């Protein structure tokens, strides 16, 4: 069951979005943040329903265990607001990323380790994790896909 996210956790996420990705906090105006099972955080701009409990509201944007983990859906939707910690992929690596492969990229050494937004030619692909050596693929298995046109 979804419940409204408490302010402390919400502020942790707002700060993370700003610090890690440079997302201006003003864009969250009008959204309601919810927490669900398995520490999942949902973002919605829906009304409260009377007499019926919804299965979900809006989209799942984070998993908040010890530290926040952004979802691919989140980064695909809000990628246009990201100003730092993104990795531009060429077509060859984009195909590998979409198939769920990890990537070794020489030009990513300057990025601070942590979650990153993967981009191909202004198209926001999703989430990766840079550990300083390897870009670990963070796509859910259900999204693995062989791309024929890009």
């Amino acid at each position: 069951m979804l419940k409204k996210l408490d302010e402390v956790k919400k502020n942790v996420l707002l700060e993370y979005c700003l610090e890690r990705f440079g997302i201006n906090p003003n864009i969250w105006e009008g959204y309601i943040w919810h927490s669900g099972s398995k520490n999942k955080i949902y973002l919605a701009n829906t009304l409260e329903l009377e007499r019926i409990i919804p299965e979900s509201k809006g989209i799942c944007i984070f998993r908040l265990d010890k530290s926040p983990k952004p979802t691919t859906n989140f980064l695909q939707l809000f990628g246009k607001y990201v100003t730092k910690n993104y990795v531009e992929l060429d077509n060859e690596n984009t195909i590998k990323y979409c198939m769920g492969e990890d990537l070794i990229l020489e030009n990513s050494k300057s990025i601070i380790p942590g979650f990153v937004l993967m981009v191909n030619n202004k198209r926001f692909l999703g989430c990766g994790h840079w550990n300083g050596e390897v870009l670990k693929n963070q796509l859910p298995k259900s999204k693995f896909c062989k791309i024929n046109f890009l």
Partner: protein
Amino acid sequence: MDRYQNIRNNIIDKYSCLVDDKTKFAESINIPLKQSFRVNTLKEEKKTVIKKLKEYDPTIKTTEWNDNAHISELNNLGSSLEHFVGHIYIQELTSMIPPLVVKDLITDIKIIDCCAAPGSKTTQIAAMMENKGHIIANDARHARLKSLRGNLDRLGVTNTSVTLRDFKSFPNTKADLYFVDAPCSSEGTIRKKNTVARTWKENDYLRFNKLQNGLLSKACEMAPSGSTIVYSTCTFSPDENEKVISETLDKYDLKMKNISIENLRSESGITEWNNESYNSEVEKCMRVWPHHNDTDAFFIARMEKC
């Protein structure tokens, strides 16, 4: 003759009496549909996406009746990066019709999509609303929620709550607009490869009629005065279309509204079938035939609760 050709021939035999041009109708039924899609304007501008897609298929065309309905010669746009990132949604052209007939209403309002999975209409409506207002996307089957939620996530829809209920037992909920895109025999999708499982019998149509009546009646019961109800199916069968509307008009205080879409050729609802006469108001319903616009078949009615 293969099983699917038999099904196609049965449909041609059964419904030729309702069409203006039997030969063209029969020909169209035997021609497979091309892949169609719309751009998800929640994530990207239409012209940007179409420009990119034309690099893969320069022949992409936009229909004359919907500036966000596009047709491709490719049959695997699902493996394009635009699909992966949620810039496009592959959708049958006729399936895009219901939100278009209430375009004048779709703003910052409350909408219930009674049978929402897999989310074609829900995501289309959300895009038309620019993620404002509120949509309740309901479906009765748990297995179908996965595709619904997957599409809402991929397209970035944030103004929607997903519920899992048999709509006939849905708690009374006031809304401005109700979409009842009812389960049906799907005969109108015959041009898609092997989508119609078998030739339906009279009892099957009656079974669907009962289900559709139940869903539409529930929407009519909970709809407040002045709200709008849109009923649609993808079948030719009058038992699932005009008959359902006629029976509903007899039970509830509803006003039928005329509907039309500029540049989309359509016909009125029929008032007689199988020696049965329907309420004359069903003429205000819209029938889309496959040979008129090179689409599937579709039926749609717009009603206002008095």
